[in-house]
């Protein structure tokens, strides 16, 4: 082959190789790092049409309102536990560390953690937004019955209802 062609071939192969490698590595890393979001009732009843429940040990995110009077602190350490609710059952979150500035009873929060048993989550991170009226959008949907319908799935306006 001519050096010029050889160079081109090499360049193209290099690009394809790098891209394949990058995409493969990326998909693998993505698969490991996707955390599904649940509300307390979804966690208990299962998510989606098939009612898939998370497994013990699975990483996930949970969002809900902190139940008033449920915050229990350990007097000797920074261990704390509290209950979350949206429309149905309660779920308990346990955490050790400093809660965010806006953590309050009755406030909407999101916790990232691992499922310890069917209704207990060991949180590694607790998030509350810097806004008094903040509610995770997913919780707002569950509580207020407002459903976010993607444009692709919207029914024509002339529906039967």
């Amino acid at each position, binding site marked *: 082959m001519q*050096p*010029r062609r050889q*160079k081109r071939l*090499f*360049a193209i192969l290099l*690009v394809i190789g*790098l*891209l394949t490698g*990058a995409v493969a*590595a*990326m998909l693998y*890393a*993505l698969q*490991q*790092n*996707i*955390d*599904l*979001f649940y509300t307390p009732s979804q966690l208990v009843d299962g*998510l*989606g049409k098939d009612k898939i429940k998370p497994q013990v040990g699975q990483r996930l*995110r949970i969002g809900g309102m902190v139940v008033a009077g449920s915050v229990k*602190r350990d*007097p*000797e*350490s*920074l261990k704390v536990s509290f209950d979350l609710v949206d429309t149905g059952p309660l779920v308990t979150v346990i955490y*050790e*560390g*400093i*809660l965010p*500035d*806006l*953590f309050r009873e009755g406030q909407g929060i999101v916790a*990232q953690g691992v499922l310890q048993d069917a209704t207990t989550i060991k949180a590694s991170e607790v998030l509350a*937004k*810097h806004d*008094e009226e903040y509610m995770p*959008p*997913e919780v707002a949907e569950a509580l207020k019955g407002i459903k*976010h319908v*993607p444009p*692709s*799935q919207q029914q024509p306006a002339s529906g039967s209802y």
Partner: protein
Amino acid sequence: MIVEAGQLALTFAFALSLLLAIIPLYGSFVANQRMLLLAKPLALGQFLFCLLAMLALIYAFRTNDFTVVNVAQNSSSTLPWYYQITASFGSHEGSMLLWVLMLAGWTALVAQFSKALPLLLLGRILGIMGVICVGFIAFSLFMSNPFERSLPFFPVEGRDLNPLLQDFGMILHPPTLYMGYVGFAVAFAFAIAALMGGRFDSVWARWVRPWALAAWLFLTLGIMLGSWWAYNELGWGGWWFWDPVENASFMPWLAGTALIHSLAVTEKRGTFKSWTVLLALAAFALSLVGAFLVRSGVLVSVHSFATDPGRGMYLLVFLLLVVGGSLLLYGMRMNSVRSQARYQLFSREMMLWGNNIFLLTACLIVFLGTLFPLFHKELGLGSISIGEPFFNQMFYYLTIPFALMLGLGPWVRWKQQQFTPLVKPLGLILVAALILALGVLASMQSVQANLALLGMLLGAWVGVSALAEVMLRMRQFGSVTQGLTKLNASHYGMTLAHIGFAVLVIGVAMTKTYTEERDVRMQEGDTATLAGYQFTLVDVYDLDGPNYGGQAAELDVRKDGRYVTHLHAEKRFYRIQRTIMTEAAVHARLSRDLYVSLGEELPGNAWALRIQVKPFVRWIWLGGLLMSLGALLALADKRYRRKTPPATKQEVANA
């Protein structure tokens, strides 16, 4: 009155931008010189009116005019005066006006400092800037009017500025960042104008380079300031969260970095032309994607402004028009462009090509990681989040080959490089880097096979290589002292920026590996020990600030019984917004930061405190600062100021 004048000024600016978008572009096609000559006064007038509008808004904030919705929602009479000024761009509406002002500012700068450009090209460039201005001024005027009044009913007191934004970093971060975002519009306009005229050569590349560099400089500085602000203000001690909005600024930065490197090839060698043009389009398109993500509310983030579907839709349509239109033009014109230059596999061209591939892969990763949750949700697959580990893992993989190549790149000649002459200097550099990295870690008694070692090695390799290379170039002019003045400013700029990258890599690796963090429960008089430092809680007392109350904690820090420093951490309660904010206490040294934030009050007269010792965290921002300084040095290069371009051959010989 002044507020109405501001509104009027913005309307005038809109009219001028319309004229700017139409007259010079039309003039360029009918070859009408008078129409082309109009571009400059129109651009300057547009800037003037945008400036007046911004001043009017600042005036409304300073005079506590709560009849203006924007002022009532984002300021208060108790807010300190400097925050009243920054509050003018703290809201969605105000920040959009700032964005518009910056855009008009860049347009005016191009009009003012492009005497060397042919009239036809300048007219087209300004015309395209005008088109972009029309889009954004119309958005500000019709979709997010910062001057809207709420008469006849208005509040007597404002709702105050979001406490997160009441920080010194907030004064600097948004304007710098916006300068960078919007600055890529200039490179974009140059690219489109060149596509219209079909002229892409070294001269064109030399015209674009300083503008792309200037935009990159501001974007780098803006991102760095943002990181520093988050570190100081969010109270977590984190400096990068892979938050969607951070990612939105990181994507154009990656594309822009690729652009300034690709432009070097186009200027020096007249090749990579279509690639450079594509990067110029991409950098600006990604800035627009960023604007869309932040302002449409499709992604939840600490930075997001209030959600408004109408605004999001406007920006999306504008984005699609700009990207679609420019790609269409690109597709029509670019197949006729051919690069003549020949180069071998081992050559500077290929090294820079590799640089571009890695930067764009990084950009793609950030893009997918940011938008994947959005697609996932829109497809009805449920809400997900993509964690920090994903981005971290991907960037480890990318940084290693990238840094190895970066150490090698500047040594490689254009066209063709024999491998043997490089073996000796690079071998010496490798040995020096090894000694340096291991020496530093050994002095800290922490030589282990971990991320810190890897980062140190890569950083030392890049840094030593960059220094050695610039020394060698100087010696080629005779002696080092002679070479000192003869070497191009842009060469020093490159070296400095590369050293900045090395410093950044070392900072990230060391901070990631050796940060120690503890949440502790403390009563007054208690001592907590972390990384050899003893933190003693001396006192906690009530605070009384201008628009906030709260508590403050006083701590003494000792190391091996020796007094190190006194720390003052606050937990503020902003009365009007009813928000709690953590003001961390930071004691900064080049080798480590001590970081203490005050948490909640616990039963039993105790407090929760988060204590962190973060080695080398300053290096991250120092690296960013060095990169920006490098860009500034490169901008000072004499060749960007020549009126008539010299023969290119001679330049290639010097390069």
